[in-house]
């Protein structure tokens, strides 16, 4: 008689007690290892939601005194006066949004150009090197960007870019006033350079995920290569590309070192990009270790909380959009 196959359930009513016991025993031994393994891995994985919740809690409890004192008005008060102990984050929020939007304005055409070039137009031998160079842009540390911005970009702007810009557009409220060097413009440009690789990498993966049937169908109908991209590929990947842009936005919102080195660090709301400005991240970098009173520190924690919530929301939306086109894959994670 062949030994009973333990992976096959015994015929009903046929198993003898010793056979059932043997089966149970071997099931238990293998399952224990599996169970332990799974529990261990689950525990490690739970560290992530735990981290998120802990950060949120820590920020919230430290920000509570400021939240209690200023309430919602914190978001639109533009006074930041540590002497009178009145704090309002409006200039920082304004600066964060403006610098990021300015960065997007510059970065999106560049990044989409890169992504489309890499997926559609680049000859084979060029693809890897160009993609590699773009990824290298993402690897440059923020402080190095800031350093370069301070010593190379700002003098370049001052001498080469701003004079003609002022001559042509100086009548608009966006290009008026004196150019200090450290300004919203410098901040926006540096941010743009920094987020191009993220938008480009994710857009590229999104475009690669578009089924080639779309492209082929368009070409089959007589479209030129560009028209195929414009009418068939891009619209299909629209959600994902939008998600890529939002990812870039999320990155720009939280960028600290490069911005704080070139933006001028001034709590002020101004329409002109030639004026110095401030962002939430830059303010935290500058003022956190020096907040002299508890309320000051709490106000800074509140700024951190606002920044955190803002980036979480933007990133969540971005990832949801990207997942729509490329289900659940770790898109762009290598480009980080």
């Amino acid at each position, binding site marked *: 008689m062949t030994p009973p196959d333990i992976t096959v359930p015994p015929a009903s009513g046929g198993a003898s007690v010793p056979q059932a016991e043997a089966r149970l025993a071997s099931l238990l031994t293998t399952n224990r290892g599996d169970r332990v393994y799974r529990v261990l891995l689950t525990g490690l994985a739970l560290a992530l939601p735990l981290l998120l919740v802990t950060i949120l809690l820590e920020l919230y409890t430290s920000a509570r005194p400021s939240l209690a004192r200023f309430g919602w008005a914190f978001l639109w008060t533009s*006074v*930041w*006066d*540590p*002497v*009178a102990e009145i704090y309002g984050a409006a200039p920082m929020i304004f600066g964060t949004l403006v610098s990021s939007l300015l960065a997007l304005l510059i970065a999106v055409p560049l990044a989409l150009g890169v992504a489309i070039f890499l997926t559609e137009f680049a000859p084979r031998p060029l693809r890897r090197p160009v993609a590699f160079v773009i990824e290298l842009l993402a690897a440059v540390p923020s402080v190095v960007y800031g350093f370069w911005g*301070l*010593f190379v970009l*700002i*003098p370049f702007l001052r001498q080469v870019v701003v004079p003609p810009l002022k001559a042509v557009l100086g009548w608009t409220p966006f290009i008026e006033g*004196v150019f*200090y*060097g*450290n300004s919203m413009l410098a901040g926006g440009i540096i941010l743009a350079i920094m987020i191009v690789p993220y938008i480009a990498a994710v857009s590229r993966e999104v475009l690669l995920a578009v089924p080639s049937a779309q492209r082929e169908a368009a070409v089959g109908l007589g479209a030129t290569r560009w028209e195929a991209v414009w009418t068939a590929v891009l619209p299909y990947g629209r959600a994902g590309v939008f998600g890529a842009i939002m990812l870039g936005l999320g990155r720009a919102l939280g960028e600290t070192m490069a911005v704080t080195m070139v933006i*001028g*660090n*001034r*709590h002020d709301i101004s329409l002109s990009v030639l004026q*110095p400005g401030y962002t939430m991240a830059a303010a935290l970098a*500058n*003022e956190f*270790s*020096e*907040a*002299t009173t508890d309320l000051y520190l709490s106000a800074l924690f509140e700024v951190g909380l606002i920044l955190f919530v803002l980036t979480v929301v933007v990133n969540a939306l971005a990832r949801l959009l990207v997942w729509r086109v490329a289900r659940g894959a770790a898109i762009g994670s290598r480009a980080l």
Partner: protein
Amino acid sequence: MRPSTGRILTSVLATALAAAPLAAQVRLNGAGATFPNIIYQNWMLTYNQQFDNVELNYQSIGSGGGIRQFSDNTVDFGATDAPMTDSAVAAIKGNAHHIPTVLGAVVPTYNLPGSRGAIRFTPALLADIFLGRLTRWDDPRLAAANPGVALPSLDVLVVHRSDGSGTSFVWTDYLSKVSPEWARKVGRGTSVNWPTGLGGRGNEGVAATVRQTPGAIGYVELGYAEQTGMPAGQVQNRAGTYVTPNVQTVTAAAAGAMTAMQPSTDFRVSITDPPGADAYPVASFTWLLVRRQYPDAAKARELVKFIWWALTEGQAQAPKLGYAPLPKTMLPWIQATLATVTAAGHPVWTGPKPR
């Protein structure tokens, strides 16, 4: 390839253990003002080299940060040019001494292309510039104070501190004394609501920004202007003289304050806008924040020893670095204060007996 976790762990532990002193090496961490940073770095490097058993580390993050960290107990000593307020001292149960270490001057430094002599500033001019009312270098008011000097037609770009700063405190203290409008609108403090200008981090940041921005004007400690080859403006004092900031004029500024000081002083005095024909109007003491009681006797002892060394041997370094030595008459009073620093109930003073 990346070494295994085990190997990383052991090597980190080994290094950490190797760093743990076999001899009793005392590590002292301090943080605070950027104003005296140039001389503090000089002192600490010299002291570290001379005395093997002590390692001093100082982070120049601004007086505001120094006070905060000292109060939070995250450093052994703080440094500030803005004395702690009574309420701040009360908040840490009075466990603080202000020990003056050196005198310095806050000077208006600027970046004007083309060389010329030092620009002269009256108190009113400085107030107007920092209030944002005087926005061109070729403004007639500036020209009036600087006859015969070719002022360029550039915009005045004000640079102030973006961090909590004792240097700002001294500057705004001075402006509050000489300009009622400034006192009303802005006031004095380590961090104020600046009417105009952009922020630099630390004396270092302000000096750097002014240096890189044509037409900029900022306020820095004299040493920063001297060490970087930047000009320092002359400021008109109470007696009406345009004074160049240097060792003599700063010492003269302190002399006036000394006449008013008692031996029982806690040293928290302001010497801006002093009387005296050749006194520089924007000078200041800078203080080390030292606790009255320390938990660790060895640390407290070494700290007090270092401070005394700085107050005696270290003072010789001051003039060439852009500072001025303390008035000699202050020393016995500081000695008496240092002698009251205790650890676990016992005084840690090991120097000569205070007279």
